[in-house]
């Protein structure tokens, strides 16, 4: 099958549509993509591009609205996985893609989920992308018996709700707290650590776990809370420097970390600074300038372009989508392939129930990590990746557990 021609056609049509009205584009991209997959690719003659039964994999996430960039990162990863599977000739079925746009908002989540549930060909859903819509949509998917595998909803409490068919294919927020603590414990000369949260549920959850792990590792741990809207970080910076700690964990978002890091640098703090994915954003460097230098940042997301395992994926992605993989692109690609593999392993006995059971009970070796789930649908591994700001750029360091040899 002439994969290259097919991909170029897709890319061209996408570029063309981008100059049109945005709402038309939203409708047109999935339609165009679907049409191309079915006609241009499907009718190709030098290979059997799938065939037999058709199953659908849906994606629920923000495909319009404020967070559209994140949704498109994931959608691209999913579509790449589907087009590769269909053109590989390894499967005796064809996969189609269904977009369920929830704009990343709770209010749109019901309609988005229902559109996936109502289509009987949909065998599994990738998503919901965000935690808020997950709380709304997961019960509906549960009733419909439709498996939903999120590669990015990291709110720890989701899996405590007992949603029947929800699987989390990403370590939750709290896992980052543990990973930060383990990383610091493995560093020479780090005996005392201060943990500061920003008094949000995200920050407090992360900080709680970090404290537990630090104490378990036998380090001296102190806890402070600094509300994200504080009017002056001078006092907090003083608390850190005068305590003489060797390292600081900041559990919060970059908007607050930026002025805090500035004050810390001015007050002469020279210990290790580390923060979570709430701060893992280039905007942190823009706001904090030189004070961002040296800060470590963690994320459950890998940098697909920097890891050997995903390098090949990143190249193919670049070729097809015309851009480098974004946050969670590789993870969505993995999750989609996991679903396709689960369907293939069922040897024709494919229904929503059997797909869910295959996913929940199985183990899948992806590019980014190995996927398996606990009884509550929680992700079983804790792969957390480390980044560091160096010379004004967020550089990728690696998988924390591999870095500390754990």
């Amino acid at each position, binding site marked *: 099958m002439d994969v290259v021609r097919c991909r170029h056609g897709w890319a061209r049509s996408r570029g063309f549509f981008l100059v049109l009205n945005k709402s038309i584009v939203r409708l047109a991209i999935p339609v165009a993509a679907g049409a191309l997959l079915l006609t241009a690719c499907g009718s190709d003659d030098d290979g059997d591009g799938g065939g037999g039964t058709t199953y659908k994999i849906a994606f629920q996430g923000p495909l319009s609205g404020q967070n559209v960039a994140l949704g498109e990162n994931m959608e691209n990863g999913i579509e790449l996985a589907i087009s590769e599977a269909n053109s590989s000739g390894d499967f005796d079925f064809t996969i189609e893609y269904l977009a369920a746009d929830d704009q990343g908002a709770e209010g749109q989540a019901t309609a988005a989920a229902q559109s996936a549930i109502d289509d009987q060909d949909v065998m599994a859903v990738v998503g919901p992308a965000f935690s808020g819509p997950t709380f709304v949509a997961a019960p509906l998917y549960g009733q419909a018996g439709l498996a939903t595998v999120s590669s990015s909803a990291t709110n720890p409490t989701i899996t405590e709700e007992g949603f029947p068919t929800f699987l989390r294919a990403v370590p939750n927020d709290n896992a980052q707290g543990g990973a930060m603590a383990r990383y610091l414990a493995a560093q020479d000369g780090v005996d005392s650590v201060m943990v500061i949260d920003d*008094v949000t549920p995200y920050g407090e959850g992360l900080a709680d776990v970090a404290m537990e792990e630090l104490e378990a590792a036998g380090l001296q741990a102190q806890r*402070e*809370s*600094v*509300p994200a*809207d*504080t*009017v*002056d*970080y*001078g*006092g*907090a910076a*003083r*608390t850190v420097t*005068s305590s003489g700690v060797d390292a600081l964990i900041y559990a919060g978002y970059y*908007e607050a970390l*930026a*002025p805090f890091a500035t004050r810390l640098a*001015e007050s002469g703090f020279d210990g290790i600074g580390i923060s979570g994915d709430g701060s893992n954003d280039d*905007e942190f460097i*823009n*706001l*904090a*300038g030189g004070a961002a230098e040296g800060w470590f940042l963690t994320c459950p997301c890998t940098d697909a372009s920097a890891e050997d395992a995903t390098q090949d994926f990143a190249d193919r992605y670049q070729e097809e989508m015309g851009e480098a993989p974004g946050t969670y692109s590789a993870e969505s690609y993995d999750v989609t392939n996991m679903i396709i593999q689960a369907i293939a392993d069922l040897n024709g006995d494919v229904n929503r129930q059997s797909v869910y059971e295959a996913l929940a009970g199985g183990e899948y070796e992806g590019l980014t990590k190995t996927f398996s789930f606990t009884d509550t649908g929680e992700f079983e591994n804790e792969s957390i990746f480390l980044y560091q700001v160096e010379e004004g750029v967020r550089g990728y360091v690696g998988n924390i557990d591999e870095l500390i040899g754990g």
Partner: protein
Amino acid sequence: MSLSDSWDVLVLGLVLGSLYAVIAIGYTLVYGVLQLLNFAHSEVFMAGGFGGVIALTIFEPAVDPSGMQSVVYVLLGIAAGAVLGGVIAFGLEKAAYRPLRRRNAPRLVFLITAIGASFFLYNLAGKLFGRYPIAMPSMYENKTVFTLFGTSVSVTQLLIVGAALVMLVAVDVIVNRTKLGSGIRAVAQDPEVAALMGVDIDKVVSRTFVLGGLLGGVAGFLFGTNLQVEYTMGFLPGITAFAAAVLGGIGNVRGAVLGGLLLGVVEAFTVEIWSDAWRYVGAFAVLVLVLMFRPTGLLGERVGRTA
């Protein structure tokens, strides 16, 4: 807490407190002449922050400016903050409050208008400049200028306290020694009699707003330099400065300064002794206690009538 620690904390508190003091004057002056709690003043402050960002972005500072360059950029930022603050305050009085005064609207309507104007302005700023924080372009290297009893004082801290001091003295002179000042005091005491004596009340009120706006705008610029600029940045400092004005005795300029400094210092010590999460608990406990024993505030009311 050792003595040198206390000194460190006192410096932090005085820096924050002098900002509160400058903002509080805007509340107190307007209250003095109109008995109006101008809640939109926090947005005048916010506008000053954006004024600084806009001006400094347009004139794009050289990388790592120093010496005379730094001085020019700082003055530019102060001027831009003052101008935008003054313009917003002037427009606010003209568009929102003057029509109400013409129609003799009840007090409650003024208050609701003030709150409405505040919502309007900060949402407008969010729409225009984006709903995310913006860093003030770097004007100088924020190093230690001098060490005082073991406490190092940075350029930003010196700038804030210095600029605040100049403005506070200037306002005191304007209110007590100039023609505009006697106008303000006359209108505050009895607007009808003042009008009969030939005071142009509209002009005095408008200029009072502008005076408060200039100060608020500069405070916004200085605050943004110390932290960052964001469309919601006016809320907490605004509320605190309003409390400072009440603490010192609303309507009284020197009271506002005293109240602002006191709240800033109490906040700093609360943060030091407990934590940042207790900041406002400490500060506002002091406010409540003081008002319990002195309901008119620390310096009572000198300029205006009894609230």
